[in-house]
Structures are given as C-alpha cells and as structure tokens.
C-alpha cells in the first residue's frame, strides 16, 4: 500500500503489475474483476447445489406415494433449495455482475472499497458451508421453510443456531456489497457522467443497493429475535408469553418483498442494456425506465402483507395492500412496454443474449400476470399457498432473474475473457432452457388452481399427471444447465478472439466497450470524459 507512486500507474493504489500469482490472487483479491469472477463462480456452484435439491424434490413428486425420501427430508430440501437459490445463487450472481460491470460502466479503476469487497465475498463460502453443514447435524437441516415462520422454525434441531448465524453472515455480506456499490456509484463516476447519464444497469443496481441496505438489517433483526426467543427466554413471537407469531411474518415480509425486487431490478437493468444493442436502436424512454425502477422500489416497501392475506388482517389492511400491490403493475407495465417499443422498428438480430432477453420479456410478463391475479385478495384466498404461487414466483425468478443472468453472461463473457464462446451451443442451451422451463413451471399453474397445496411431499392422485410433466421438465431443465457450465468454462479457456466492441451491431453503448477485451487489470487508469 505504501508504494512510491510509479509514473506509469500514478492512479493506482496497490499492486501495479497485474494479478498476484497463485492462490493469493484469490484469497487476498482486492481487484473488482477477480472478486466479481469469484462471486459468479460461487453462484454457479450454488446454482447446481440448489438445483440438485430441486431435482430431489421433483423426483419425489414424480408420482403419488412416497418413494425416495422421508417427509422431513423433503421439507429440508424445499427449505434449503430456497435459501441456497436466493442467497447463494441469484444474489451473489448479481453482486458479481455489479463488481465486474459497475467500475467498467462508470469509468472507474476499481470499486471504492476494495478490501471490504474481499471481505464481503469471503464471508459467503463460510456462510454456505455452515448452512449446507446443517444437513449433517442431529435433527437435520432447517425444515420450516425459507420463511422461517415461528413457531415451526423453533422446532428446528441443532441446525437452528447454524441457520441463524448463516443468515446473519449472508446479510452482512449483502450489506457490505451494497454499500460498496453505492459508494462507488456516488463517488467514482467519470467526469461528466451525471446521474441521468449513467447506464441503466448502474441505475438499477444503485436502487437495488439502497433496498438491500434498508431490508437486510430487518431480516437480521427478525432472525435475532428468533434466536433470543429460542435461547434467552424472550417471547417476541410466542403467544404463550404475550408475543405474536404474525408479527414475525410482518417483519419478515417487510424484508421479503423488497428482497424479490432486489432479485429482479438488476435483471431489468441487464435486459435494458441488451435489447437496445441487438435492436440497433436506443433504449425507449430511458428517463421513464429510471423513474419506473424507483417507483417499484418505493412501492416494494408498502406491499409486504400481500404475502400473508390469510393471516386474518383487518378489512382495511387487506384493501390497502391489495390496491398498493396492484399499483406495482403500472411501473412494471411501463418497463415491458418500453422494452417492446425499443424492439419496435428496430433491426433485430438473435444472438444468445438477445434470445434470453426476449424469452425474459415473454415469460417474466407471464409471471407478472399471475402476480396481478394473486394481488386480488378474494382470489388469493384460493391461490394462497398452492402451486399457483409456486408457478408464479418461479416464473419471475427462473425465466426472470436467472434468464437475465444467463443473458448477462452471454452478453459480457467475451468482454470478460477476451474470447467468443460457442454460439451454436449457446443457442442450443437457450432453446433447451426455454422449452424445459415452461414444461417445468407452466403445469404448476394448473396444479395450484386444481387445489394442490405447496410444500407437500405427496399428493392425491388427481394431481398425478401434471406433476409428472413438471418433473420431466425439471430434469430436462437441470441437465440443460450443465451445458451452460461447459460453455462458460470453454470460453474462459480459449476461443476466437473477441473484439473490443464484441457485438458487430455497432451499438453496444457504454464505457465498457471502449476498453480492450479482456479489459486491463485496473479498468480505467485515467478517467474517460463523458459528454
């Protein structure tokens, strides 16, 4: 740190000669690209672990009757699948993207707080080792659902304190990651880049980071209270001691609803970057997109109770949360309309990132429609806690958030590695994913409407057919993702050289495309001027 300033790298504050050698490069990484890479590889690993759990779930549900696992293990699988996918796969993937892309897009040499960046990443392997380790302790892994509703979550065995501590660690990691994003965006932008000139991905991440800072501490507070109820005799959520189990749900969903936007707003940013590139046309309504993102973020704080319409709220409360929830359809609609208007009268080509973006448009919108249906309180009394809900949130999370991550990987991978990937294989991966994701999740709408509750390990024979279809889609989708891992690793190892602009549409906009592919170790050593 105390280097004399070198004439060639006067702007650099640490190692001026590229990456360190060996494992030290990763353990002591302060470089935003190295940390971003680690985040994304970690997330890919978690995606496969969480996915394997989903395969167990779908295998047990393949036909009626209990064939493979004990009901308690089934509940452990649903709980762990959710925790790992949300906190281990989707969120770190977006943080990894933020690490890679934000300095490149705002014209900075690195993130503002590089050592905190290292810390926030290296917490995660410990958190998830502990979480996954719960599978091997007496009583098994947490089985009360990822929502951890008391009193059920208080029945967790020795895994209980491990779960709480793991959630605390994930929360601390996310908060530090979010703080880093905000500090970088607020202080490290290239001269001339006013807020309303920032790339839309940077905007969505800025708003997401504020959501994270506001709600991750709320989750931490909620699980802290679970912990004190368990060990220190408090009765926050215990009716017998004057507490209120429903209060946990209010606090949890005050975190939980913004959390779902934490997982989708950066996805909106990615889609808003990709569609203009391959439509060869500027993003329609940039300002409206920014305001819509901000409105969605604001509304996300006042709709939490729509996750708990059946707990018996006062009529006025139900009305309020129904109306506020429906209101979210307006800014979300603006976004979908603007993406459509961006494609309209463009000149479209269908490289893998664009294919995933288009698939996102259609399938996320379907998830939005089922969300609107769920907002209607009387109808929700039927839908609540059925497979209809499962179908809804998987539509927004898998072909929504996960497809946007695939799109982002296929969009920026040549920039990151300097190599093009195998386009044919990537297109095959796209078609397999899109077809199987629908085979997997669309029938779950039917199951829910027909009356199948969620989180059950076995079901009445009337639900047999669609469950079997859904399971087949699940296995197909899971296997197809191995292709993704292969494409990514093959691209890291080599391939046709990528140009600086990568995409020949002549239109990828943004500072990242002015750098070489791969970019220099310290992204922008001198700040670019933004007109």
């Amino acid at each position: 740190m105390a280097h004399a300033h070198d004439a060639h790298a006067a702007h650099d504050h640490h190692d001026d000669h590229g990456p360190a050698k060996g494992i030290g490069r990763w353990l002591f990484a302060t470089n935003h690209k190295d940390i971003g890479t680690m985040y994304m590889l970690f997330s890919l690993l978690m995606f496969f672990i969480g996915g394997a759990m989903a395969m167990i779930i779908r295998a047990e549900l393949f036909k009626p009757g209990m064939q493979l696992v004990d009901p308690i293990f089934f509940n452990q699988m649903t709980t762990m699948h959710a925790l790992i996918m949300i906190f281990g796969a989707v969120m770190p993937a977006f943080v990894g993207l933020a690490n890679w892309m934000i300095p490149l897009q705002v014209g900075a040499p690195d993130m503002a707080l590089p050592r905190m960046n290292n810390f926030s990443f290296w917490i995660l392997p410990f958190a998830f080792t502990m979480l996954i380790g719960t599978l091997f302790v007496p009583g098994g892994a947490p089985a009360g659902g990822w929502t951890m509703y008391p009193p059920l979550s208080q029945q967790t065995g020795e895994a209980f304190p491990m779960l709480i501590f793991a959630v605390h660690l994930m929360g601390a990691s996310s908060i530090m990651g979010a703080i880093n994003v905000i500090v970088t965006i607020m202080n490290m932008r290239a001269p001339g880049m006013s807020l309303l000139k920032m790339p839309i991905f940077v905007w969505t991440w800025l708003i997401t980071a504020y959501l994270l800072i506001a709600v991750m501490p709320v989750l931490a507070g909620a699980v802290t209270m679970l912990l004190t109820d368990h060990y220190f005799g408090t009765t926050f959520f215990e009716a017998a001691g004057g507490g209120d189990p429903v209060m946990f749900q209010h606090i949890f969903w005050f975190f939980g609803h913004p959390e779902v936007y934490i997982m989708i707003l950066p996805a909106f940013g990615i889609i808003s970057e990709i569609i203009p590139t391959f439509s060869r046309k500027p993003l329609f309504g940039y300002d409206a997109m920014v305001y819509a993102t901000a409105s969605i973020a604001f509304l996300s704080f006042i709709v939490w109770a729509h996750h708990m319409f059946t707990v018996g709220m006062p009529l006025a409360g139900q009305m309020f949360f129904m109306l506020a929830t429906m209101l979210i359809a307006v800014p979300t609609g603006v976004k979908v309309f603007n993406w459509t208007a961006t494609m309209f009268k463009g000149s479209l080509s269908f490289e893998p990132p664009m294919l995933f973006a288009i698939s996102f448009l259609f399938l996320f919108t379907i998830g939005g429609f089922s969300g609107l249906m769920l907002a209607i309180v009387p109808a929700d009394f039927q839908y609540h806690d059925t497979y209809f809900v499962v179908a809804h949130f998987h539509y927004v999370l898998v072909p929504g958030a996960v497809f946007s991550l695939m799109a982002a990987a296929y969009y920026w991978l040549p920039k990151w590695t300097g190599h093009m990937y195998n386009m044919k294989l990537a297109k095959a991966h796209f078609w397999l994913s899109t077809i199987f994701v629908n085979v997997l999740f669309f029938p779950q709408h039917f199951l829910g409407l027909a009356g199948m509750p969620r989180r059950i390990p076995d079901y009445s024979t009337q639900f047999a057919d669609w469950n079997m279809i859904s399971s087949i889609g699940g296995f197909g989708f899971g296997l197809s993702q191995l292709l993704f891992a292969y494409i990514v690793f093959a691209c890291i190892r080599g391939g046709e050289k990528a140009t600086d602009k990568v995409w020949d549409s002549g239109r990828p906009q943004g500072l990242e495309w002015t750098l070489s592919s791969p970019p220099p170790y310290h992204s922008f050593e001198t700040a670019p001027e933004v007109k």
Partner: protein
Amino acid sequence: MKIVKYAAGMLGAALLPTGAALAAWELNMPVGVTELSRDIHGLHMMIFWICVLIACAVFGVMIYSIVKFRHSQGAVPANFDHSTKAEIIWTIIPVAILVGMAIPAAATLVKIEDTRNSNLTIKVTGYQWKWEYEYLDQKVKFFSTLARDSDAARQTGSGVDPSTVPNYLLEVDKPLVVPVNAKVRVLLTSNDVIHAWWVPAFGMKKDAIPGFVNELWFRADEPGIYRGQCAELCGRDHGFMPVVVHVKSQAEYDSWLAEQQGGGTPAAAAAQVENAAPVTAAAAE
C-alpha cells in the same frame, strides 16, 4: 413440447397403469358450492381474461417486431428514443384497468369478511398433524385425522399403489359434518404451529394461529362431500392432514348431531374416533 408430452404420456402409462383412469388433466379452478366461491371464481376468470387480452396485445407487438424488423431481412432501425404521449397512454390505461378490477374485488372482500348472523359456529383447532372440531353450542368435539388406508399407503416403501386407495390423502376418519344452506362460522386457532384450513369448494382458506382466533364463514348450497388440505407448512406431516366436510340435509345433520351428543363424554367421543376409521374407510366410495 408435443414430443415431451407424448413421452410423458408413455412414461405415465408405463409407471402408473391405473393412474390414467383416476387422474384428471385439470386446468382451471373448479367452481365451488358456496356463493363466495362462485364470486371468487368469477373474479378469477375476469382477471384471467383481462390478462389474456393484455398478453395478446403486448405479445402481439413483440412477435410482430421479432418477425418484421429482422436485421437478417435488412431492416433499417429507426432512431426514436421516447414518446411522451405513448408513455402517458400506457400509464393511464393500466391504472383504469386496475381500478376496474379493484372495485368488484373489494365488494367480494367485504362480503367475505361479514361473519355476522351465522347459524352455526364451529371451532377448528390445528394440531401437528390433525384437526379438532368443536361445535361450540352443541357440546360436540372430536379429532379428525388422515384415514388409515391412506396413512398406510403413504409410508415410504409401503408397496401400496396410491391409485388403489380411494381418495388417497384426502380422506379422514371422522369428517366435519354441517347442514346444507346454513351459514357456518368457523373459528380457527392452533395448539402448536401455524396451520391453514382450506376447502377449495368453499372458496375459503385461513390460517390457524396459536394464541389467536381467526374466523371465516361459508354457506354450502349442495349436500356432498368436500375435501381440502392444510395449506400452511406445519412440519413433517403437513401433507397428511386433510380436511373433509360432509354437507348434509338439515334432518340428516340433526340426527347425526343427536347421535354425537348421545355419547357426549370425551372418552366416548375418543372411542368413536377409534372405531370410525375402519368404518369410514370401508364406506368410502
């Protein structure tokens, strides 16, 4: 898609020989037997069709753009990047549609929350993993648990084909019995963790929360047997605590009630539960 469905059909036929006869390719929410459930079904269908209309419009433009403005077909991109008029239109129209949806939804909600003037009040208590029904003014109280044949078949490695068990997982030893055309008020609470009591045909679902009492009501207008399940994760056997309600004519209900009250001591009621299981299982269609 077709190939997949075909393969699935083949697989299904191979693995589940009798499954095809019992199973249904159910697509939609069934219409129930209460006014509320019909209202809810109506709301559901209304929103569904509104969504379909919007989807046709939005997906139509997307598909048109994908087909018409292809780079490979030499499409030349326009350069517009905003239109205040269009943006105002597609903000206002959704608001109007939402208001149109909210009004009938609010009206139904008011009706749902009105539990006054009930003819009968039943207290439902959730346990891990069974339901207890108590007829508050009639001094009748009993547990309702998963029927024995379902319970035997659902054990891992039981070797019993679920399709041979009548009403697999949806049958209980002793169902709740209510009179037809009576406004039944249900008070919900729990003895341990949170459960949710749900009968799809009645359109209503509500959580049973320890230390708190929730209420819902239904008025079934057709006699019959209606089945549902616990709808809030409540631990290991969450999937195995069904709700079965027999809706009977007033006369049949009255004689049933008299019979229950005849053996009114708790011990006798418990003995009845023991006896009821095989009888119900044998009588089940």
